[in-house]
């Protein structure tokens, strides 16, 4: 049987998207999406952790017994998060100053754990890596979308301060769409996070319905 990489990629990015379909990892999806730039940075850090931990679990899955799998998964995720934290602090310090306090929170994000339990624990190294990576990228896309909606409506800008995060070369990303002080500030505050997420989930389901697909109900259950 050939590994259905195409399905894995599609699942991760759209069909089974961690935030928009499974509604997992909502804590960072709410807290870190006050701007598209922060959301993108947080998403990429999470994707790195997910790819690395999925690969490791896929690699060692035959050695991990049923009984101790959950502590081992958490150990793997926590170690990867610590590594990302250390390396980012040392070598990507500007990014670290923005994301630093949120990186430890990746440990408590249930999406990486859900993917280890649902996929990497049952599949070999390469498919697990692909699953972790694309689930992570799907998470990044969802977060960036939420962040973009909140930032445009709330502040009138898009990708503000992207050059602080990724370097001066990314100055071109910084766009002002609405005049200063015209935004609806609530969208940047916590209620706006729920509103933006809710509207995006609706948008995804409408697109799926239009394409004639059955809506997956039950959120997290589809992952387990």
């Amino acid at each position, binding site marked *: 049987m050939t590994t259905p990489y195409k399905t894995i990629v599609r699942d991760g990015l759209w069909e089974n998207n961690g935030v928009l379909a499974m509604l997992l990892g909502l804590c960072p999806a709410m807290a870190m999406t006050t701007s598209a730039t922060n959301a993108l940075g947080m998403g990429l850090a999470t994707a790195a952790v997910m790819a690395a931990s999925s690969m490791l679990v896929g690699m060692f899955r035959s050695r991990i017994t049923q009984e*101790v799998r959950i502590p081992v998964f958490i150990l793997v995720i926590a*170690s990867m998060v610590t590594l990302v934290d250390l390396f980012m602090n040392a070598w990507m310090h500007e990014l670290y100053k923005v994301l630093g306090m949120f990186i430890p929170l990746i440990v408590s994000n249930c999406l990486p754990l859900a993917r280890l339990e649902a996929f990497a624990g049952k599949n070999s190294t390469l498919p697990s890596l692909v699953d972790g990576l694309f689930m992570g990228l799907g998470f990044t896309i969802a977060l960036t979308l939420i962040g973009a909606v909140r930032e445009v409506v709330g502040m009138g800008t898009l990708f503000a301060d992207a050059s602080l995060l990724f370097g001066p070369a990314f100055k071109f990303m910084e766009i002002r769409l609405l005049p200063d002080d015209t935004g609806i500030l609530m969208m940047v*505050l916590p209620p706006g996070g729920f509103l933006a997420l809710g509207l995006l989930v609706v948008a995804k389901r409408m697109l799926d319905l239009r394409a004639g697909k059955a809506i997956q109900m039950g959120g997290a259950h589809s992952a387990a």
Partner: protein
Amino acid sequence: MKAQHVLRHGMILGTFCLGFGVVLAISDSITVDDIAARALEDRLNSLSQVIPASIHDNNLVADAITMKNELDKEITVYRATREGQVTGVAYEIFGTGYAGQMKLMMGVDTQGKILGVRVLAHKETAGLGDKMEVKKGDWILRFTDLSLGNPPPDKWKVKKDGGQFDQFTGATITPRGVIDAIRRGLELFAAHKEQMMDISTSKAPRKEAS
């Protein structure tokens, strides 16, 4: 049989812990110097914004003492010297904003005149309270060159409270906290001027720290 199982699971978990422990220890030893260097750069960077380079020729981080502020909290006081003469000091000040404590760094010259104030850390609302950050607005720059007598003490308030400082759009509590922190910081300097500027005390704690 049962005990064997427990032992086996324990071994598996233990092996993973050991393995990742070693990986983390190695990574830590690789990055520890870089991380310390970055932290020092950050500190020097925030100090250079409140102490102009023209007034000192010393290493600000080296010539530092710790003392207790008015809230009995330990703060580090960095001293700027030029040719052995103290020309200014910089220290952390704390204010209460809308969402908890705000940490600022303030530099003052020997006369108690503000050289500069910058926000180091805060949890204020993005888009409202964060206009005190220098990269989001020039509000915080207005305090430069002011001192305890200028404006008079009862004017060290936001306009809403009868003072002379503008609050910014939509936020009063944040600027109120910042102004209060600055005023208390200046009072701290006025009360402990000798201790804060006494350069002879700086060498000892430095050796302990290094």
